[in-house]
């Protein structure tokens, strides 16, 4: 079996590329989750949750080339679906927060896994329904349509008081995510993305991205291949939402809007939009810069003077850094280098 696979990929050297480098990256991520502690616990957990979301986003954006402004709505859908099931640590407050829930859900608090499954299913179903319509669009029209999804979802969830507590927040959601479990989810998301992008569906979708006309001529059906990526990525982003609810223990609709959409897209594009390694690198880079700036914001000593930057300094510096980065490296940190993309096996013609 092994020998067969090796022959397929052209010998041991390629085999190491296929197996070793990705395994190393995954091990590093899980290792980071394992050692994280102290003041970095929350930062690392948050970063891992973001990584799930950005990797999910990558599955669609990276492979299809369509920039989606809509994926954060799947994060919200997943987060609230999980909260509907797992809330609350104090059972009697559930009917208070969420009076619109059906009777049988109002008095139970399901385990986290059930919430996770619900998040995956709901975001997947919604994505499939919407995707069926809008995956026919390409380019900027498709991007605007995805932005439409975000706006519609945001408007509904902000005003659906009985199910989302409207503009106030749902809290007392049991906290079930620590850095280690979050890192396992991140690794799993990366693995799924890697398997997808090396499957025939992923290769077909990238062909459509690079040349729609030629790939149509070669027999690739555009809408279904986009739809598969869209649904898969929505599911993973939805799971990211569920993780967010299990990490913070409190949810507000406002957090799932424009700012987060751009932060996650920014991470992906800074890392390198068409590379899974880039998605990971982008999350690490921007989180790293943010952590560094946050440390600066508490004050630092320069010579003999103690400097304490005004609030907003951290954000301004991050903004300037992002502009500089885009100027110096417009194709992103990794360009299109990707340890998770394997050479397409060439079969002998019979």
């Amino acid at each position: 079996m092994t020998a067969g696979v090796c022959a397929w990929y052209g010998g041991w050297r390629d085999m190491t590329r296929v197996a070793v480098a990705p395994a190393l990256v995954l091990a590093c991520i899980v290792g980071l989750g394992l050692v994280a502690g102290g003041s970095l616990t929350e930062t690392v957990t948050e970063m891992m949750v973001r990584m799930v979301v950005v990797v999910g986003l990558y599955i669609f954006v990276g492979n299809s080339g369509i920039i989606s402004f809509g994926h954060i709505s799947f994060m919200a859908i997943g987060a609230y679906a999980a909260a509907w099931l797992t809330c609350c640590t104090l059972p009697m407050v559930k009917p208070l927060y969420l009076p619109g829930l059906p009777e049988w859900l109002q008095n139970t608090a399901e385990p986290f896994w059930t919430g996770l499954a619900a998040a995956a299913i709901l975001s997947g179903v919604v994505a499939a329904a919407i995707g069926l319509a809008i995956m026919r669009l390409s380019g900027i029209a498709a991007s605007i349509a995805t932005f439409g999804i975000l706006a519609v979802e945001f408007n509904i969830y902000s005003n659906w008081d009985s199910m989302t507590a409207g503009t106030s927040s749902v809290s007392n959601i049991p906290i079930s995510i620590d850095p280690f479990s979050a890192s396992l989810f991140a690794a799993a998301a990366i693995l799924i993305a890697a398997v997808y992008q090396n499957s025939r569906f992923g290769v077909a979708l990238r062909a459509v991205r690079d040349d729609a006309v030629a790939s149509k001529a070669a027999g690739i059906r555009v809408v279904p291949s986009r739809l598969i990526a869209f649904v898969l990525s929505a599911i993973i982003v939805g799971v990211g939402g569920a993780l967010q609810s299990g990490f913070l223990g409190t949810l507000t609709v406002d957090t799932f809007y424009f700012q987060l959409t751009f932060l996650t897209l920014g991470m992906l594009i800074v890392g390198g939009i068409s590379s899974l390694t880039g998605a990971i690198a982008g999350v690490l880079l921007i989180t790293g810069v943010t952590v560094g700036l946050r440390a600066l914001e508490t004050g630092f000593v320069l010579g003999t003077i103690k400097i304490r930057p005004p609030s907003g300094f951290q954000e301004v510096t991050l903004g300037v850094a992002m502009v500089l980065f885009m100027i110096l490296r417009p194709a992103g940190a990794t360009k299109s280098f990707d340890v998770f993309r394997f050479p397409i096996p060439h079969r002998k013609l019979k």
Partner: protein
Amino acid sequence: MILFAQTLLDALSLGSLYALVALGIGLIFGMLRLVNFAYGDFITVGAYSLIIPSTAATATMIVESAHVGAVVFIVCTAVVVVALVSELLAFRHVRQAKPATLMVTSFAVGYTIQNAIIMIYTSRPKSLGLWSELLTPLDFGPLRVPALQIVTILTTSILLLAMTFLVRRTRYGVQMRAAAADFDMARYLGVRAGSIIGLAFIMSGLLAAVVSLLVETQIGVVSPNMGVNLMLFGFVSVVIGGIGSLSGAVLGGLLIGFASALLQAYLPDGVRAFRDAFVFGLIILTLLLKPAGLVRVTATKERI
């Protein structure tokens, strides 16, 4: 009937506002394929340029609002300067990059501007009564119309006429349209890229300044993210209208303004809160039916 006439005026003034924003975004977008997400923050800068930095909840203005000329001058200068500086420092250097890179750059520029405003003025919204006398309704028989609506509609009409003249009849306008149709070809034929882009940013900035004044008078409060929603609607208008077409951008803005105002007036009470969901539902539907926009431009047609 009265309600309908009033709604129509609401629609027209909201539509004019969106049309102006769409025009400002569309000018740059048509030429550089740059989705300027910082545009909303240009609008915000305009409003903040009028006040003295402080932590107070009520803003103190630099000049009294009675000095109309001075107010307009300050706002226009501030916005144009910010627009030109962001072009010089950021957008110029990514001109050849892919749309995604341009987009993140413009977002980062906007993020920087917004947080610089927070750094200087704090994040707290401030009340600022600019020209509040324009909010008193005028009576036209049974119809009561705030003077501001008339000002908005008139200003927009004048600006649109001026823009049409500039774009159709002057050499700069022709160069801008040429650059929007095919930037490289226009350069080969002698259009100076730097100055024509600079001009587009100046005009786009002036439009943002006008929007800023109108919106500021309307809501009477400045806050660091006051421009974001306008920018989003403007951007959507550009795409709905047809990329690369300025009249399309205006049409898109007017239509979205009309849809919003009509839905606001005629949706039943229980679902009125979901107005934006309906508006964006209509937008998605329009895109599905007309993916290239309402006004189709041959130059931007994909050649298949």
